[in-house]
């Protein structure tokens, strides 16, 4: 990545972070902390030349399929889709209001979303079906699935993890937003499923651990994985911080269910203004 390209991504990260806080300010029932841990991943996918998409035709056959399995933790995708003209940016103002299609848990009524989200552990299996279908169609489109680490407790994921390796779904990349916190506690305290990469390796997947807030690393790994077609499904374990940049939320084990007040959000945005 050239330095100007990297700067562009960093600018986008900042913009998406700010927009996400504003969305949460308008709709405090949205899940803020888990939406902040995956911003770099989303920015890399949409602005880093990873995903093929067509905002004018969201269901364009040649698109890559991006399945947001951790749906509720992807409010940060709303400003990206709006910025890319999947829908007017004015929709962001209406989040959570009657008549708006932007709720706290996204569904495919939002242009750009592929699957029903909200209930966890569904995206990877559906992505596997899409991956088999795309191979059968000899399509060059790929499947990217974003899942949370808490979500991996759902057994349906492991059915799909076995399936993907057996069927050599190398057009499938799973990105785990490994922010280490589920709803009520640190994953290490609930059921410690670390180290994740070792588990995927044992199931026959190609794995890479990355710093999920290092945009250069996230983009480079996604780009490299996109090109590798060696008969293995791929997983990127993105080590992230839940509530990234949101002061009090960072590493609070209950951050998933916490909201910030208008005043707290305003202070964060102000500080972010000053830092530039």
């Amino acid at each position, binding site marked *: 990545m050239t330095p100007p390209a990297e700067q562009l991504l960093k600018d986008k990260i900042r913009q998406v972070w700010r927009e996400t806080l504003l969305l949460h300010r308008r709709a405090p029932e949205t899940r803020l902390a888990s939406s902040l841990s995956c911003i770099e991943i989303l920015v890399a996918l949409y602005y880093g030349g990873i995903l093929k998409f067509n905002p004018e035709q969201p269901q364009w056959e040649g698109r890559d399929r991006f399945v947001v399995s951790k749906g509720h933790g992807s409010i940060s995708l709303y400003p990206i889709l709006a910025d890319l003209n999947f829908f007017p940016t004015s929709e962001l103002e209406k989040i959570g209001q009657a008549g708006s299609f932007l709720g706290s848990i996204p*569904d*495919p*009524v939002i242009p750009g979303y*592929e*699957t*029903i989200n909200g*209930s966890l*552990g*569904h995206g*990877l*299996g*559906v*992505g*596997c*079906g*899409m*991956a*088999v*279908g*795309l191979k*059968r*169609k000899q399509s060059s489109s790929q499947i990217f699935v974003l899942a949370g680490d808490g979500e991996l407790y759902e*057994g*349906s994921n492991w*059915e*799909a993890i*076995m*399936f993907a390796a057996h*069927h050599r779904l190398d057009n499938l990349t799973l990105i785990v937003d490994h922010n280490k916190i589920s709803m009520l506690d640190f994953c290490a305290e609930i059921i410690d499923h670390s180290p994740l990469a070792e588990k995927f390796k044992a199931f026959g997947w190609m794995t890479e651990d990355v710093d999920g807030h290092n945009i250069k690393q996230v983009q480079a790994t996604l780009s490299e994985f996109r090109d590798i077609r060696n008969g293995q499904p791929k997983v990127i374990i993105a080590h992230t911080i839940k509530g990234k940049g949101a002061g009090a939320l960072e590493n609070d084990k209950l951050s998933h269910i916490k909201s910030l007040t208008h005043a707290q959000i305003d202070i964060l945005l102000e500080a972010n203004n000053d830092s530039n």
Partner: protein
Amino acid sequence: MTVTKNKTMRDVFLAALLERMRQDSSIFFLTADFGSPVLDQIRNDFPERFINVGIAEQNLINVASGLALEGFNVYAYAIAPFITMRCYEQVKVNLALMSQLREMNVNLIGVGAGFSYVVSGPTHHSIEDISIMRTLPNIEVLSPADWITAQSMLDFTLHCHRPKYLRFDSQPAPAIYAEDSKPFNEHGFNVLNAGGKICLAATGYMTVQAVNTHKIMADEGVDVAVIDIFRLKNFDMAELAENLRGYKHVISMEEGFIGKGGLDSLLLNLKNDFNLPFGFKSIGIGDNYHFELGARDRLLENYHAGIESTLKIIRALV
């Protein structure tokens, strides 16, 4: 009625599907490690469109959903209680909900309707499926009474691009319809015998029981009507209502729980919505499980749902 060979619904249906797969490359067949002799041939002839996902019904539904979203016509095959209840939320989210937003054709074939896995016990009996699958919007529930009806559903499963649940009996049985007939129609039912004051409105294996009941009562000089209802949602309500209007008594017969949203609820709602004057009784499975082994009719008699109980109910009404 013609006497036909004993056949299983699944073998006949899968054999017809196999022939379609030769011409139609959009058909995928998935199984959760559940087989049949015909399935071996599908696996052999179409290895690239046959997938055994293993004993993993949640993934069966999810993979089926993903394939259907990519435009394939998908058949997913497993034992009835497992393809409905083990993965119920996958069916809700990735088929019922999803199909409201995107066209998708997934056909869930559940083998083992009612008590048809007689000696396997309550885990393998499927007496909840009619009501729980009827609960989900956007999903068709198809319940054939014999292999000829099952076979004649194939075209519908390919052309109707919605999720469907096909409830197949596991046992080989003779047909109640003529071998050259096509009993399936989109209205959802067939009148097998009209006339008399009492009508048995039945589905699946219970239609066979109803036909046998009809014969016994005919020998006693009593004409009992039989209606076979094989489409348990999206059927032609007005037409069914008109066919039931003239009876003094209607008795629903299902190898499933009663009072919980099954065929009896369907008929009671119809009675209510169309102001049908008949008296109503339901025959089916009461609110408990049995671990007892025995012949199928014996298991049904545990719930007063076998032929003897049915005859008793009818004789009391005559």
